[in-house]
Protein backbone atom coordinates (compact mmCIF):
# COMPACT_ATOMS: atom_id res chain seq x y z
CA UNK A 1 0.00 0.00 0.00
CA UNK A 2 1.44 3.41 -0.89
CA UNK A 3 2.48 4.99 2.39
CA UNK A 4 1.39 8.44 1.29
CA UNK A 5 -2.16 7.47 0.36
CA UNK A 6 -4.58 7.76 3.30
CA UNK A 7 -7.44 6.07 1.42
CA UNK A 8 -5.34 2.94 0.96
CA UNK A 9 -3.76 2.99 4.42
CA UNK A 10 -7.12 3.04 6.17
CA UNK A 11 -8.68 0.30 4.01
CA UNK A 12 -5.64 -1.99 4.10
CA UNK A 13 -6.97 -4.17 6.95
CA UNK A 14 -10.29 -5.06 5.29
CA UNK A 15 -9.17 -6.97 2.21
CA UNK A 16 -8.35 -10.25 3.90
CA UNK A 17 -4.62 -10.27 3.31
CA UNK A 18 -2.51 -12.03 5.94
CA UNK A 19 0.02 -9.22 5.79
CA UNK A 20 0.04 -5.66 4.43
CA UNK A 21 3.13 -3.81 3.29
CA UNK A 22 3.00 -0.06 3.89
CA UNK A 23 5.40 1.31 1.33
CA UNK A 24 7.87 4.16 1.63
CA UNK A 25 9.87 3.12 -1.44
CA UNK A 26 8.62 2.85 -5.01
CA UNK A 27 5.06 3.99 -4.30
CA UNK A 28 6.11 7.28 -2.70
CA UNK A 29 7.59 10.20 -4.66
CA UNK A 30 11.03 11.39 -3.59
CA UNK A 31 9.61 14.74 -2.49
CA UNK A 32 7.02 13.07 -0.26
CA UNK A 33 9.07 10.59 1.79
CA UNK A 34 8.91 12.84 4.88
CA UNK A 35 5.16 13.28 4.59
CA UNK A 36 4.60 9.55 4.10
CA UNK A 37 6.52 8.69 7.29
CA UNK A 38 4.28 10.99 9.28
CA UNK A 39 1.12 9.64 7.64
CA UNK A 40 2.07 6.02 8.34
CA UNK A 41 2.87 6.90 11.95
CA UNK A 42 -0.51 8.57 12.44
CA UNK A 43 -2.34 5.78 10.57
CA UNK A 44 -0.83 3.09 12.82
CA UNK A 45 -1.76 5.08 15.92
CA UNK A 46 -5.36 5.64 14.85
CA UNK A 47 -6.51 2.75 12.66
CA UNK A 48 -7.22 -0.81 13.71
CA UNK A 49 -4.88 -3.31 12.08
CA UNK A 50 -5.85 -6.20 14.34
CA UNK A 51 -5.64 -9.53 12.56
CA UNK A 52 -3.26 -8.38 9.86
CA UNK A 53 0.53 -8.35 10.00
CA UNK A 54 1.89 -4.83 9.41
CA UNK A 55 5.13 -4.63 7.46
CA UNK A 56 6.77 -1.35 6.46
CA UNK A 57 8.99 -1.23 3.37
CA UNK A 58 11.78 1.27 3.84
CA UNK A 59 13.95 2.70 1.10
CA UNK A 60 17.12 0.80 0.15
CA UNK A 61 20.08 1.29 2.50
CA UNK A 62 22.01 2.89 -0.38
CA UNK A 63 19.54 5.81 -0.55
CA UNK A 64 19.58 9.02 1.54
CA UNK A 65 16.14 8.09 2.92
CA UNK A 66 16.83 4.74 4.58
CA UNK A 67 18.20 5.94 7.90
CA UNK A 68 15.35 8.40 8.46
CA UNK A 69 12.86 5.67 7.48
CA UNK A 70 14.31 3.21 9.97
CA UNK A 71 14.59 5.77 12.74
CA UNK A 72 10.95 6.81 12.36
CA UNK A 73 9.31 3.50 11.50
CA UNK A 74 11.11 1.13 13.87
CA UNK A 75 9.87 3.14 16.86
CA UNK A 76 6.29 2.36 15.78
CA UNK A 77 6.98 -1.33 16.49
CA UNK A 78 5.66 -2.73 13.21
CA UNK A 79 5.53 -6.49 12.89
CA UNK A 80 8.44 -6.26 10.47
CA UNK A 81 10.57 -3.94 8.38
CA UNK A 82 10.87 -4.96 4.73
CA UNK A 83 14.40 -4.40 3.47
CA UNK A 84 14.46 -3.89 -0.31
CA UNK A 85 17.43 -4.83 -2.51
CA UNK A 86 18.49 -7.01 0.43
CA UNK A 87 22.13 -8.07 0.74
CA UNK A 88 24.14 -9.42 3.71
CA UNK A 89 25.83 -6.03 4.11
CA UNK A 90 22.54 -4.12 4.22
CA UNK A 91 20.99 -6.64 6.60
CA UNK A 92 23.95 -6.23 8.96
CA UNK A 93 23.63 -2.44 8.91
CA UNK A 94 19.87 -2.58 9.48
CA UNK A 95 20.30 -5.08 12.30
CA UNK A 96 22.73 -2.75 14.10
CA UNK A 97 20.40 0.23 13.74
CA UNK A 98 17.47 -1.79 15.09
CA UNK A 99 19.60 -2.93 18.06
CA UNK A 100 20.20 0.73 18.95
CA UNK A 101 16.58 1.82 18.47
CA UNK A 102 15.21 -1.09 20.51
CA UNK A 103 17.57 -0.14 23.34
CA UNK A 104 16.55 3.53 23.15
CA UNK A 105 12.86 2.62 23.17
CA UNK A 106 13.16 0.04 25.93
CA UNK A 107 12.05 -2.82 23.67
CA UNK A 108 13.20 -6.40 24.12
CA UNK A 109 16.20 -7.02 21.83
CA UNK A 110 15.04 -8.64 18.60
CA UNK A 111 11.46 -7.34 18.86
CA UNK A 112 11.46 -5.85 15.38
CA UNK A 113 11.66 -8.51 12.71
CA UNK A 114 13.01 -8.05 9.20
CA UNK A 115 11.79 -9.42 5.90
CA UNK A 116 14.39 -9.45 3.14
CA UNK A 117 13.24 -8.48 -0.35
CA UNK A 118 15.68 -10.15 -2.70
CA UNK A 119 15.58 -8.44 -6.09
CA UNK A 120 19.11 -8.30 -7.50
CA UNK A 121 21.49 -10.91 -8.90
CA UNK A 122 23.86 -10.28 -5.99
CA UNK A 123 20.95 -10.59 -3.58
CA UNK A 124 19.97 -13.96 -5.04
CA UNK A 125 23.52 -15.30 -4.89
CA UNK A 126 23.98 -14.20 -1.26
CA UNK A 127 20.49 -14.93 0.10
CA UNK A 128 21.72 -17.61 2.51
CA UNK A 129 24.24 -15.18 4.03
CA UNK A 130 21.63 -12.40 4.19
CA UNK A 131 19.40 -14.61 6.32
CA UNK A 132 22.28 -15.86 8.49
CA UNK A 133 23.55 -12.37 9.26
CA UNK A 134 20.55 -11.49 11.44
CA UNK A 135 18.30 -13.53 13.72
CA UNK A 136 15.62 -10.91 13.02
CA UNK A 137 15.20 -12.17 9.44
CA UNK A 138 12.04 -14.27 9.43
CA UNK A 139 11.11 -14.20 5.74
CA UNK A 140 12.55 -13.71 2.27
CA UNK A 141 10.42 -12.22 -0.49
CA UNK A 142 11.34 -12.39 -4.18
CA UNK A 143 11.11 -9.18 -6.23
CA UNK A 144 10.86 -10.57 -9.74
CA UNK A 145 10.46 -7.33 -11.70
CA UNK A 146 13.55 -5.63 -10.25
CA UNK A 147 15.52 -8.86 -10.56
CA UNK A 148 14.65 -9.10 -14.24
CA UNK A 149 15.80 -5.51 -14.71
CA UNK A 150 19.08 -6.28 -12.93
CA UNK A 151 19.58 -9.33 -15.13
CA UNK A 152 18.72 -7.23 -18.20
CA UNK A 153 16.03 -9.69 -19.27
CA UNK A 154 12.31 -9.47 -19.97
CA UNK A 155 9.72 -10.84 -17.60
CA UNK A 156 7.36 -13.42 -19.04
CA UNK A 157 4.02 -14.76 -17.89
CA UNK A 158 5.35 -18.24 -17.26
CA UNK A 159 8.26 -16.77 -15.22
CA UNK A 160 10.72 -19.31 -16.64
CA UNK A 161 13.47 -16.72 -16.18
CA UNK A 162 12.93 -16.73 -12.42
CA UNK A 163 13.35 -20.48 -11.89
CA UNK A 164 16.90 -20.31 -10.51
CA UNK A 165 16.15 -17.38 -8.19
CA UNK A 166 12.95 -19.02 -6.94
CA UNK A 167 14.54 -22.36 -6.10
CA UNK A 168 17.62 -20.73 -4.56
CA UNK A 169 15.44 -18.64 -2.25
CA UNK A 170 13.18 -21.54 -1.28
CA UNK A 171 16.17 -23.75 -0.49
CA UNK A 172 17.95 -21.11 1.59
CA UNK A 173 14.76 -20.36 3.53
CA UNK A 174 14.07 -24.03 4.17
CA UNK A 175 17.64 -24.68 5.25
CA UNK A 176 17.41 -21.86 7.79
CA UNK A 177 13.76 -22.53 8.68
CA UNK A 178 12.25 -19.20 7.70
CA UNK A 179 9.36 -18.29 5.42
CA UNK A 180 9.62 -17.71 1.65
CA UNK A 181 7.19 -15.53 -0.32
CA UNK A 182 7.02 -15.49 -4.11
CA UNK A 183 7.02 -12.44 -6.37
CA UNK A 184 3.64 -10.95 -7.36
CA UNK A 185 1.88 -11.77 -10.62
CA UNK A 186 1.62 -8.37 -12.23
CA UNK A 187 -1.31 -8.82 -14.66
CA UNK A 188 -4.20 -7.97 -12.36
CA UNK A 189 -6.82 -8.89 -15.00
CA UNK A 190 -5.53 -12.41 -15.67
CA UNK A 191 -6.91 -14.72 -12.99
CA UNK A 192 -5.98 -17.91 -14.83
CA UNK A 193 -2.42 -16.67 -15.11
CA UNK A 194 -2.41 -15.75 -11.42
CA UNK A 195 -3.66 -19.22 -10.50
CA UNK A 196 -1.02 -20.93 -12.64
CA UNK A 197 1.78 -18.74 -11.26
CA UNK A 198 0.64 -19.27 -7.67
CA UNK A 199 0.41 -23.05 -8.19
CA UNK A 200 3.94 -22.97 -9.58
CA UNK A 201 5.18 -21.04 -6.54
CA UNK A 202 3.50 -23.52 -4.20
CA UNK A 203 4.92 -26.47 -6.11
CA UNK A 204 8.43 -25.03 -5.80
CA UNK A 205 8.03 -24.66 -2.05
CA UNK A 206 7.13 -21.02 -1.45
CA UNK A 207 5.01 -20.56 1.65
CA UNK A 208 3.03 -17.69 0.16
CA UNK A 209 2.77 -15.12 -2.58
CA UNK A 210 2.81 -11.34 -2.81
CA UNK A 211 -0.27 -9.61 -4.16
CA UNK A 212 -0.30 -6.23 -5.89
CA UNK A 213 -4.06 -5.83 -5.88
CA UNK A 214 -6.74 -6.84 -3.35
CA UNK A 215 -8.54 -8.71 -6.15
CA UNK A 216 -5.71 -11.25 -6.18
CA UNK A 217 -5.99 -12.25 -2.52
CA UNK A 218 -8.85 -14.75 -2.81
CA UNK A 219 -7.17 -16.69 -5.63
CA UNK A 220 -3.87 -16.89 -3.76
CA UNK A 221 -5.65 -18.13 -0.64
CA UNK A 222 -7.57 -20.66 -2.73
CA UNK A 223 -4.38 -22.13 -4.20
CA UNK A 224 -2.65 -22.30 -0.84
CA UNK A 225 -5.62 -23.72 1.05
CA UNK A 226 -5.64 -27.49 1.47
CA UNK A 227 -8.58 -29.16 -0.26
CA UNK A 228 -11.13 -31.14 1.72
CA UNK A 229 -9.62 -34.33 0.29
CA UNK A 230 -6.11 -33.28 1.40
CA UNK A 231 -7.38 -32.50 4.89
CA UNK A 232 -9.15 -35.86 5.15
CA UNK A 233 -6.07 -37.69 3.94
CA UNK A 234 -3.90 -35.82 6.47
CA UNK A 235 -6.30 -36.78 9.26
CA UNK A 236 -6.13 -40.43 8.20
CA UNK A 237 -2.33 -40.33 8.16
CA UNK A 238 -2.20 -38.85 11.68
CA UNK A 239 -4.80 -41.32 12.97
CA UNK A 240 -2.86 -44.24 11.48
CA UNK A 241 0.34 -42.85 13.06
CA UNK A 242 -1.28 -42.68 16.49
CA UNK A 243 -2.58 -46.23 16.13
CA UNK A 244 0.84 -47.48 15.03
CA UNK A 245 2.47 -45.79 18.03
CA UNK A 246 0.03 -47.49 20.41
CA UNK A 247 1.06 -50.83 18.96
CA UNK A 248 4.74 -49.95 19.22
CA UNK A 249 5.24 -49.94 15.44
CA UNK A 250 7.92 -47.70 13.93
CA UNK A 251 6.67 -47.84 10.35
CA UNK A 252 3.21 -48.49 9.03
CA UNK A 253 1.28 -48.39 5.80
CA UNK A 254 -1.84 -46.61 4.67
CA UNK A 255 -3.73 -47.58 1.53
CA UNK A 256 -0.95 -49.99 0.67
CA UNK A 257 1.79 -47.35 0.84
CA UNK A 258 4.48 -47.04 3.46
CA UNK A 259 4.16 -43.96 5.64
CA UNK A 260 7.43 -42.48 6.84
CA UNK A 261 8.44 -39.27 8.58
CA UNK A 262 8.29 -36.87 5.58
CA UNK A 263 4.70 -37.97 4.88
CA UNK A 264 3.75 -37.55 8.53
CA UNK A 265 5.32 -34.07 8.60
CA UNK A 266 3.48 -33.11 5.43
CA UNK A 267 0.19 -34.31 6.91
CA UNK A 268 0.77 -32.34 10.09
CA UNK A 269 1.65 -29.26 8.04
CA UNK A 270 -1.60 -29.62 6.07
CA UNK A 271 -3.61 -29.78 9.27
CA UNK A 272 -1.70 -26.83 10.77
CA UNK A 273 -2.42 -24.68 7.69
CA UNK A 274 -6.07 -25.78 7.63
CA UNK A 275 -6.42 -24.82 11.29
CA UNK A 276 -4.63 -21.50 10.78
CA UNK A 277 -7.01 -20.42 8.02
CA UNK A 278 -10.09 -21.69 9.80
CA UNK A 279 -10.92 -24.69 7.62
CA UNK A 280 -10.93 -26.99 10.67
Amino acid at each position, binding site marked *: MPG*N*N*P*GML*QTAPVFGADSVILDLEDAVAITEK*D*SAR*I*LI*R*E*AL*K*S*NDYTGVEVVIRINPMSTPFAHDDIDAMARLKPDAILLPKATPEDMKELDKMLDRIEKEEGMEPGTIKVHALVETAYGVETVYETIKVSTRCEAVLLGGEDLAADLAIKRSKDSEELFYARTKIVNACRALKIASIDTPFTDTNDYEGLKADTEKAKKLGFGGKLSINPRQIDMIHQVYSPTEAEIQHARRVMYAKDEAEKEGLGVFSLDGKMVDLPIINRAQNTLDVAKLIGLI
Partner: protein
Amino acid sequence: MTINKPAKAGTLESNDIYVMIMPSDEGVNIELESIVEDQFGDDIREVIKSKLSEMGITSVLVKATDKGALDYTIRARIEAAVTRGL
Protein backbone atom coordinates in the same frame (compact mmCIF):
# COMPACT_ATOMS: atom_id res chain seq x y z
CA MET B 1 8.03 27.62 16.77
CA THR B 2 7.70 30.02 13.84
CA ILE B 3 6.71 29.37 10.26
CA ASN B 4 9.47 30.86 8.15
CA LYS B 5 8.42 29.92 4.64
CA PRO B 6 5.36 28.73 2.74
CA ALA B 7 4.96 24.99 2.63
CA LYS B 8 2.42 22.42 1.54
CA ALA B 9 1.50 18.81 2.15
CA GLY B 10 -1.17 16.33 1.15
CA THR B 11 -3.03 15.84 -2.10
CA LEU B 12 -6.43 16.46 -3.64
CA GLU B 13 -7.13 12.70 -3.75
CA SER B 14 -10.17 11.26 -2.04
CA ASN B 15 -9.69 10.77 1.74
CA ASP B 16 -6.87 13.32 1.80
CA ILE B 17 -6.49 17.00 2.65
CA TYR B 18 -4.25 19.44 0.78
CA VAL B 19 -2.79 22.03 3.09
CA MET B 20 -0.79 25.16 2.30
CA ILE B 21 0.69 27.18 5.13
CA MET B 22 2.11 30.67 4.99
CA PRO B 23 3.97 32.83 7.52
CA SER B 24 1.70 35.32 9.23
CA ASP B 25 1.79 37.68 12.19
CA GLU B 26 -1.98 37.71 12.63
CA GLY B 27 -2.41 34.61 14.75
CA VAL B 28 -3.83 31.32 13.49
CA ASN B 29 -6.19 31.72 10.55
CA ILE B 30 -7.72 28.83 8.66
CA GLU B 31 -9.34 29.01 5.25
CA LEU B 32 -11.05 25.69 4.67
CA GLU B 33 -12.77 24.24 1.64
CA SER B 34 -14.32 20.85 2.41
CA ILE B 35 -16.65 18.42 0.68
CA VAL B 36 -18.19 17.86 4.12
CA GLU B 37 -18.22 21.48 5.32
CA ASP B 38 -21.75 21.32 6.69
CA GLN B 39 -21.25 18.11 8.63
CA PHE B 40 -17.65 18.35 9.73
CA GLY B 41 -16.24 21.78 8.86
CA ASP B 42 -15.96 22.96 12.46
CA ASP B 43 -14.48 19.64 13.58
CA ILE B 44 -11.82 19.84 10.87
CA ARG B 45 -10.88 23.37 11.91
CA GLU B 46 -10.60 22.18 15.52
CA VAL B 47 -8.29 19.32 14.56
CA ILE B 48 -6.09 21.74 12.59
CA LYS B 49 -5.98 24.25 15.47
CA SER B 50 -5.25 21.52 17.98
CA LYS B 51 -2.33 20.16 15.95
CA LEU B 52 -0.89 23.61 15.41
CA SER B 53 -1.13 24.32 19.12
CA GLU B 54 0.52 20.99 19.93
CA MET B 55 3.41 21.95 17.64
CA GLY B 56 3.72 25.38 19.28
CA ILE B 57 2.56 27.37 16.25
CA THR B 58 0.79 30.54 17.32
CA SER B 59 0.71 32.42 14.02
CA VAL B 60 0.10 30.99 10.56
CA LEU B 61 -2.27 31.19 7.63
CA VAL B 62 -3.58 27.75 6.67
CA LYS B 63 -5.38 27.16 3.38
CA ALA B 64 -6.82 23.68 3.28
CA THR B 65 -8.81 21.77 0.67
CA ASP B 66 -10.38 18.72 2.26
CA LYS B 67 -11.52 15.67 0.29
CA GLY B 68 -12.90 13.65 3.18
CA ALA B 69 -9.77 13.22 5.31
CA LEU B 70 -10.07 11.51 8.68
CA ASP B 71 -8.57 13.20 11.73
CA TYR B 72 -5.30 11.23 11.57
CA THR B 73 -4.73 12.39 8.00
CA ILE B 74 -5.45 16.02 8.88
CA ARG B 75 -2.98 15.85 11.78
CA ALA B 76 -0.34 14.17 9.59
CA ARG B 77 -0.63 16.70 6.78
CA ILE B 78 -0.52 19.68 9.13
CA GLU B 79 2.57 18.24 10.82
CA ALA B 80 4.26 17.65 7.46
CA ALA B 81 3.49 21.17 6.23
CA VAL B 82 4.63 22.80 9.48
CA THR B 83 7.86 20.80 9.54
CA ARG B 84 8.55 21.82 5.96
CA GLY B 85 7.75 25.45 6.75
CA LEU B 86 10.05 25.87 9.73
